[in-house]
Structure formats: C-alpha cells, structure tokens
C-alpha cells in the first residue's frame, strides 16, 4: 500500500515555496548593492566614494614645494606654525594650476580675526585694540605678516 499516495498537495506546496524563495533570491541579488556587507552592515563602496571627494585646501606640504622662500621668512617668527591656508584660504586650485592666482588679502580684516583684544581669550595670546593700537592704519604698514615682530622687518 502506497503510504505517500495523498502527498501531492504537500509537493505542490513545497514547489510553491521554492519558487517564492528563488524569486526572493533574484530580487535580493538586484536590490542589495554588490559591496553591502564587505566590512559590515553597510555598502563598502561608500567608503571609497567619500574618500574621492575633492580637496580644497592643498595643505602646507604642497605650498612648501614651491614657496620655500616664504617658509624661510616664517621659520624664525611667531607665525612659523601657522599654516599658509589659515590666512590665504583654500588654494588647491592654485596648487593644481599656478596660473590661477589667489585673491589679495586684506590685513585689516585678517589680523583682527585672531588678534582683536577680548578678555575671553587666553591671557598669553597677543591681542590689540586695533583702533587704539594703530588708529586704522593697515597692520602690514609696520608688521610683515609672515614674521610679525617689528624686528622682522616691514613689507
């Protein structure tokens, strides 16, 4: 006597289940990105995409490859460790193509950003009340920005 005589309905159900599972696998293959799970529960390729974003600040190492003369002026002064682009702004475009000239800087605005007197600043940091100190004369009249001590020479 065939004990599996009435199992047709079970086989049909199993076939249906496998078809659904196969459809799930096919959809999953197309929907889940290739690199998902490469490093963890995220799309691994995202790391490389973020790493490829454009650089705007070239970095002082880049500036120093051409502007060694300025580096020599800065080295003995108080501004030796202030990187070029902290004042000159983002210049990666200039570094890529030196014919693109950086914008002219206004020392009246630039110096005050750091050196405006305020009781909130650390006490050891050199601060001036620009109006009292120079009466509106541009800073670079007396101070060479790359080596700002008066002994460092005027521009």
């Amino acid at each position, binding site marked *: 006597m065939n004990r599996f005589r009435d199992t047709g309905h079970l086989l049909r159900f199993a076939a249906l289940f496998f078809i659904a599972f196969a459809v799930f696998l096919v959809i999953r293959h197309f929907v889940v990105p290739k690199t998902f799970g490469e490093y963890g529960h995220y799309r691994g390729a995202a*790391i490389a*995409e973020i790493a*490829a974003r454009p650089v705007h600040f*070239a970095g002082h*190492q880049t500036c120093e490859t051409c502007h060694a003369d300025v580096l020599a002026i800065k080295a003995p002064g108080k501004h030796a460790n202030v990187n070029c682009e902290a004042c000159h702004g983002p210049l990666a475009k200039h570094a890529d193509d030196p014919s693109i000239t950086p914008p002219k800087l206004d020392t009246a605005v630039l110096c005050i950003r750091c050196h*405006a007197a305020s009781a*909130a600043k650390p006490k050891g940091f050199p601060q001036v009340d620009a109006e009292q100190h120079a009466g509106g004369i541009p800073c670079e009249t007396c101070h060479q920005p790359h080596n700002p001590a008066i002994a460092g020479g005027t521009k």
Partner: protein
Amino acid sequence: MLPAAAIAWKYVLAGTPEESPNYKMSDHWWSMLIDIPKCIGCGNCVRACAAENDVPEGHFRTWVERYHVTDYDMTNPEVISPDGGKEGFPAVQEDAGKYFFVPKMCNHCADSPCTQVCPVGATFVTPDGVVLVDQTYCLGCAYCVQACPYGCRYIHPEKRVADKCTLCYHRINKGLTTACVENCPTGARQLCDLKNPNDPIHAFLKTHHVQVLKPQMATGAKVFYNELDGSVR
C-alpha cells in the same frame, strides 16, 4: 591629486619612496585632540570646514562655543556660539568669571549611538574608526540626528539626507590632515592616529588631564579635550 603627490614626492626625495602614504584602513584608528587653553575662538576651523566640505549655510560640522562660568553659579555657564563661531565672538571688556572656548565636532565614537539606530545601514564606523554617512543609501529619517548625544548631525537642506563631519576622510587617506586642523592657527586641534605607535598623542594622553564629552554615555568618543572644564556639557 596634487597634494597627495606632493606628500609622496617628499618621501621620494628622501630616498624612501616605500614610506610614502599607501593608505590601508586597518593600519589606522583616527581620533582628534582639542587643546582648550590654546583655542582663541577665531572661527578659522568653522570657515575651513565649510569651505572644504560645502557645508550648507546655517549648519555646522564643527562649531565653537564660548563658555562663561561665574564664581557664584559654576553649574550654569553662559554658552554662546553666534553663527557657530564662524566670524569669531563679540569682544569682552570686563574680566569677571572665567571664559574659554570649546570647539565641537563629531566625536567619531567607537560605539556610536547614531550608527546603531540607522534602519538601513546608511551610517557606519569604518575599519579606521571614522563615522560616515552613505548619502546614496540614507532615507533622511533623522533617527541618527536624534540619537547623537553631541548634536553633531543635521539633515542636509537640499539633499534631504543626514550629513556630518567625515573627519575629512577624503584628506586623511591621502596623508593630509583635516581642514580644521590645517587651518587652526594656534595648534589647538591635532589629528591623531591611535594605531600609530609614533603618534605624539600617546605621550600626551599619559601626561595631561584629558577628557571626552559625556563619558557617562559610554559612546567611546574619540575627540579628546585637554583641560576641559567640568561645566562643559
């Protein structure tokens, strides 16, 4: 690509081209040191970050807060951050109480609450310890914005996806430092690599009073603050 080339060239000139940066994620574990006594509140970091990363107006990946702690109310400091400190701070004449500046940014937590709540795996900690957002995958549900105990995330007003500090990932993997560190005139910020045994951070952490923000939240924050005042929240 020039900045990366310039750095590689330095090693070529020194006769050791094999030491030029060839980035391997497993060799790094990035963090940041912020030296409070050195910060002058000039806002250079905030401007640099905005220029480097096209940060939308009115949102900040890094910002500077000025604390004013008075003798009679140590637990309720007055905190200001006009436009994130982007254009500096109003001058102070009188010297009552204590003033100091606290630059803030993503803490790139090792156990970050923001990555744990993302329902789609759009935000994650990279193998080198940087918390990033996959903006092509993000739904913009802002769960992570709520989850960050430091308030370091925002929804990008045009892209409608989560945005945050990437620790200038596109720079550090080329051997450059972050835009905020590059532009800090007083060296109040330092990028540190905890996996590099020669990084000065190790000696610094041994010999200074260094804290992280909200240690009670057990986020594994990796932005270290030197001489942080107890009133900072």
